[in-house]
């Protein structure tokens, strides 16, 4: 076994390389790779790690993303720790295998370096690829910084392989904004990560072996049995929520960094209005929230870290009693003429006590557009105005004004 000793310390890493360190430290058994911008440097870095003798994993260069995921299905069935990464059309191309990963309850971890989805064509940042598969049965975690990417990958394995969860996990970050921008990243020591992942060694997991052959992905009838597997997958998603909070807390105790679990509430407790973000625009939004706070505006921020399963209970607690909520969506939901998080929040609003908060949607950052400080200021100003009773447009397309 190759020992990746002495890799810890503070480094300057872009998101892809930070992710690669997270994977290296998690000691996967098998990694499949097929290049697509903007995740390619992540897989290149893993090959470099292997060439340098740091990474002891089977590396398979496939002829496409569908094979990448299909190989992981088999490897995961055999009990392996698996990894691959993709973006945009690559994610679409692996779609049937992607669905099987969740249906078979294989704890695969996959990075989505998020990029706009065709069409229009664009090799640019967006969230459309990842949010489009929100109900394909995977757990989805969205990250704000390069450090959070690294830490989330280690935590993702702890969540996926937990015997009460056993679901595949996506760690998502926006292409270019995070994948290609360098930040200060603290890389944990191998021994610490080994200790953190050690509980997984004792977890129960169904394995396909030659000694005890099993059938997986069975053609399932009758309908009652099919229903049972759907029921079990939904129940596991629900269990994953509290489990994630616990894992985040345990990570914080060990490494000194934690991210609030399912959601992060930033200056939101005494806020009259809140803005809701997901992904890297959270960093910009926090700066603007600070500025507005200095001016006496009672605004806070909720970052959605866990998009799937929906952090419903935590969101209800955080949003209860707010006068207005402004959602920044870097994606669109075609059928509802809004963004996905707007739709999600709209769904859970009805469970809050009256008076219900007003809900506004701001679609921005599509096609690689920046979500600027000025944009966030507009979001806060309008949400505040709505709270004061001024009529506002429900859905605003930020870059079209």
């Amino acid at each position, binding site marked *: 076994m190759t020992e990746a000793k002495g890799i810890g310390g503070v480094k300057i890493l872009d998101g892809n390389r930070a992710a690669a360190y997270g994977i290296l430290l998690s000691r996967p058994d098998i990694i499949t790779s097929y290049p697509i911008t903007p995740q390619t440097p992540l897989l290149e870095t893993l090959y470099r790690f292997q060439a340098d003798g740091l990474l002891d994993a089977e590396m398979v260069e496939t002829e496409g993303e569908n094979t990448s995921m299909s190989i992981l299905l088999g490897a995961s069935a055999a009990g392996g720790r698996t990894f691959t990464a993709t973006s945009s059309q690559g994610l679409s191309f692996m779609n049937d295998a992607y669905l099987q990963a969740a249906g078979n309850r294989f704890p695969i971890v996959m990075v989505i370096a998020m990029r706009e989805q065709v069409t229009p064509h664009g090799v640019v940042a967006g969230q459309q690829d990842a949010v489009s598969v929100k109900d394909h049965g995977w757990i989805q975690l969205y990250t704000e910084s390069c450090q959070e990417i690294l830490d989330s990958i280690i935590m993702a394995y702890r969540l996926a392989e937990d015997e009460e969860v056993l679901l595949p996990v996506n760690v998502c970050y926006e292409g270019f904004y995070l994948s290609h921008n360098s930040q200060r990243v603290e890389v944990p020591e191998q021994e610490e990560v080994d200790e953190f992942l050690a509980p997984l060694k004792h977890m129960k997991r169904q394995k396909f072996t030659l000694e005890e*052959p*099993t*059938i*997986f992905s069975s*053609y*399932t009838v009758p309908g009652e*049995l099919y229903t049972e597997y759907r*029921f079990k997958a939904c129940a596991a998603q629900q269990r994953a929520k509290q489990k994630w909070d616990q894992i985040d807390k345990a990570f914080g105790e060990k490494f000194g960094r934690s991210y609030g679990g399912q959601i992060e509430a930033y200056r939101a407790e005494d806020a009259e209005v809140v803005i809701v973000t997901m992904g890297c625009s959270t960093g910009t939004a926090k700066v603007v929230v600070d500025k507005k706070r200095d001016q006496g505006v009672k605004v806070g921020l909720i970052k959605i870290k866990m998009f799937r399963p929906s952090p419903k209970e935590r969101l209800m607690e955080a949003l209860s009693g707010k006068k207005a909520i402004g959602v920044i969506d870097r994606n669109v939901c075609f059928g509802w003429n809004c963004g996905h998080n707007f739709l999600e929040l709209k769904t859970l609003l009805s469970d809050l006590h009256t008076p219900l908060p007003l809900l506004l949607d701001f679609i921005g950052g599509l096609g690689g557009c920046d979500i600027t400080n000025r944009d966030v200021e507009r979001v806060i100003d309008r949400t505040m105005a709505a709270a004061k009773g001024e009529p506002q447009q429900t859905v605003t397309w930020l870059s079209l004004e």
Partner: protein
Amino acid sequence: MRLRSPFEGPWSTPKDPYDIKTGEWRSQRPITKVEKCRQCGWCYIFCPSGCIEEKEYYFTANLEYCKGCGTCSKVCPAKAIMLIREEV
């Protein structure tokens, strides 16, 4: 809650397959004329469903899984397997 599978996902074991009984698809069923069977095993080898079972003096299809394709009847050199229509 009525749950019956010990597995979290659509997994099963060869002994206890929680999967489809393909015999339900059948429109005709093979019947072995026991006295004609020479136990050559051709039906066992050629059956696409792998559902032929060896009994003490003859081979016959497991009707839980037999789809009624008729291959066994076609390949049988002793003409020991006949097909009859399933009554609906």
